[in-house]
């Protein structure tokens, strides 16, 4: 994965930049020592690292505005960072960039149960948003696996999803408003506690723009009342195809579970060895969860189990207690950790139409044999969001490259099956160079036109999302502006 050559003019500005930033931020909020900037050299895509020029940790919208204004005047690229949990390299710095971390901005500004909203600073973690309202039995719905650590800022940047978005939607469906700072320091308020935009839906395009349009400092989020209860059922099948057909039939039958999770044999075995969740040994496992009162849950599960029986399951295990529910989820939730025990892995995020599931799984199996690398599949089956985990050995020369080539083939397969490169992790640098497989040049041009409007000099997170060759002339503006 290439990154642009650092701009020497910017590198030479470091002392001057530090001096200017210290005029607007507390001394400990400007980090310029290499031993400390190294903490920001990568996000969760750890294969790629580069310490930034410096890092700043503002604690207010005003400070963010001051930082951006100064960087704008100096022509210095800025890479926004939430908690650094991106699997796509969304927060990967370049040597000539300033990391702007929002971690110190983590306050709850307002909770309003009557209007079902919460307003938070964007550095607040996803899970702690729910934490702030759960005493009143409310929750914030999007639940990415990294929810303990990931920040709302990053959730908005990547339009994060989670296991329960089949029912509740992803970040964009639960975001009502933002306070955002543009690259020139202008502070804008978009949306609020009301629904829908009065003009163009700017909020809609900001969500998922990977920190390239502005830095979100505050967010108004929709909160929901918790359901009375939830209960999962575990289903074991002897082939991926049958499990896939069962998913499709459940959806067609008019029951909308809150989650349908899928694991294949390699993942099941890994989870079993790691978490001892008591999963049956089989080719494909589904976890289907429904919500409501006890009686409603019984009713829905009866319907779902009836459908599942038609597909000759090897086992159907309806949870009988909170403890059993927790154990059913335990394996799924520790899947990534379990795979990590076996080897290094790369986690993909392509989405496919649910109907293409059996074909895509079969083809991934063939590719796995061709590349000689094992792959486990665990994913949100209800919405076709796959997470193939390719196992490789980072210490073996050439293995990472082979793994990346395999990953690229899987993602192209997803696109060719009618899907897309990324369902919830974002493009970052990881899928950047594959964008032309999904989009024509003019499609990318239309997207880049949006960035031209918000950030004409392409200073915000410039080397992400778009293939470097495609964004080259725009990024050159930044150098020419010197």
């Amino acid at each position, binding site marked *: 994965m290439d990154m642009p050559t650092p701009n020497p003019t910017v590198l030479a500005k470091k002392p001057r930049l530090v001096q200017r930033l210290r005029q607007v931020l507390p001394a400990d909020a400007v980090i310029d020592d290499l031993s400390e900037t190294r903490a920001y050299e990568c996000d969760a895509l750890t294969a790629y690292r580069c310490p930034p020029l410096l890092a700043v940790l503002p604690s207010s919208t005003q400070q963010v505005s001051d930082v951006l204004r100064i960087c704008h005047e100096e022509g210095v690229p800025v890479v926004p960072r939430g908690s650094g949990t991106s699997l796509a390299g969304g927060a990967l710095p370049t040597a000539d960039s300033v990391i702007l971390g929002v971690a110190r901005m983590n306050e709850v500004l307002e909770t309003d149960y009557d209007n079902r909203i919460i307003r938070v600073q964007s550095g607040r973690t996803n899970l702690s948003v729910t934490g702030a309202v759960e005493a009143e039995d409310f929750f914030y719905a999007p639940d990415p696996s990294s929810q303990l650590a990931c920040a709302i800022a990053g959730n908005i940047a990547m339009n994060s999803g989670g296991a329960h978005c089949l029912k509740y939607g992803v970040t964009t469906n639960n975001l009502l408003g933002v306070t955002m700072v543009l690259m020139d320091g202008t502070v804008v308020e978009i949306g609020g506690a009301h629904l829908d935009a009065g003009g163009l839906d700017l909020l809609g395009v900001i969500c998922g723009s990977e920190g390239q349009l502005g830095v979100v400092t505050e967010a108004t989020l929709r909160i929901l009342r918790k359901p009375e209860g939830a209960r999962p059922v575990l289903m074991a099948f002897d082939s991926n195809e049958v499990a896939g057909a069962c998913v*499709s039939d459940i959806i067609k039958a008019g029951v909308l579970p809150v989650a349908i999770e899928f694991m294949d044999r390699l993942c099941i075995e890994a989870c079993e060895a790691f978490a001892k969740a008591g999963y049956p040994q089989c080719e494909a496992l589904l976890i289907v969860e429904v919500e409501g*009162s006890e*009686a409603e849950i019984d009713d829905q599960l009866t319907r779902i189990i009836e459908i599942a029986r038609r597909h000759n399951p090897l086992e159907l295990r309806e949870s009988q207690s909170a403890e059993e529910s927790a154990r059913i989820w335990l394996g799924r939730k520790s899947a990534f950790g379990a795979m990590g025990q076996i080897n290094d892995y790369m986690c993909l995020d392509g989405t496919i139409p649910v109907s293409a599931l059996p074909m895509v799984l079969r083809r991934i199996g063939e590719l796995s044999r061709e590349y000689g690398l094992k792959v486990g599949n665990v994913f949100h089956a209800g919405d076709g969001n796959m997470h193939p985990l390719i196992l490789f050995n980072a210490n073996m020369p050439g293995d990472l490259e082979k793994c990346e080539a395999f990953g690229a083939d899987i993602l192209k397969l997803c696109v060719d099956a009618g899907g897309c490169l990324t369902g919830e992790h974002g493009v970052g640098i990881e899928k950047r160079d594959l964008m032309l497989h999904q989009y024509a040049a003019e499609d990318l041009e239309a997207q880049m036109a*949006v960035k031209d409007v918000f950030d004409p000099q392409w200073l915000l997170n410039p080397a992400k999302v778009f293939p470097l060759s495609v964004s080259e002339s725009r990024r050159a503006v930044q150098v020419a502006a010197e």
Partner: protein
Amino acid sequence: MLRPESEAELAQIVAGLTAPVRIRGGGTRGVPGPDAELDVSGLSGITLYEPGALTLVAKAGTPVAEIETALAAEGQRLAFEPMDHRGVMATEGTPTIGGVVAGNISGPRRIQAGAARDFLLGVRYVDGMGQVISNGGRVMKNVTGYDLVKLMAGSWGTLGVLSEVSLKVLPKAETQATLMVSVPDAGTAVRALSAGLGSPYEVTGAAYDPALGQALVRIEGFEASVDYRAEALSRLFAPFGTVARLEDDPWPGIRDVTPFQGRVGDVWRISVKPGDAPELAERCKAEALLFDWGGGLIWALMPEGADLRGRLGEFAGHATLVRGDRTQRAMFQPEPAPLAALSRGLRQRFDPKGLFNPGLMG
């Protein structure tokens, strides 16, 4: 009149345009603009429908009714419940899915299920240079590149002419029930509706008709579950007023604002924080009001030419002039300067010659 029959022909026509046009789907929503029309109704037909994947793709000029019929045959529906403007606008014609998307048109279920924009998975459109652009796709989760899908929803044609849209659909509920609470005023109504929407009972409609003094709450799902929740909600609403289960289905009427149909005056649509609604509605001094979305959407029937935005003053939200003289007054709430600059910048990039519905959105 320009009436392409295919996306390629649409692109060719746009590339050759030298003067602004008004984009027309079914012509039912009364969009103001130049006399010259670009009629998209020739681009019609469902191109893909996979009930098992909850996905439907249709050309922009496809009649909404055709889509709803196809969905109903599989026990599914457009969950955002798009409004039919014909009654309140006194128009004729056939509403199209492109018009629904372009206007981000949603109904009562928006409060729970989401708006048209939330169900839009992908778009194809022709930009102001005559290029066909594709964004999003047909899968439910997609964060590949910028979400121009959301930007196109509610852009009223000012950024491009939609040629095809891809939608997430949902199962139709087995049954529904409506509870009616008799309430003395808007304040009580909004408090009651908030209690319902803040309950675990999945309210999918929350309206208030001040003319009847009725707060209305809808629940949907399997029969046993609906009964259970109707019981629970009846107990919850008891402190606010007398509760009864309504036999009729009032929701199509609320969706289409039927109480305003046939009445003279301007029709406004105001989006606010529900808790602000009673006081803001008071400021309107309207001839009639109808509240939806738990109070978050206020429909106001005003004397012709009344300056509603002036009466409201500063408020958090926005007011749209749905029916009235839009040559005198902007259809959409004027944006603060920095946002207006961004919106203008986007329009200039997507439609540099200013061909599509110029002036409509600022």
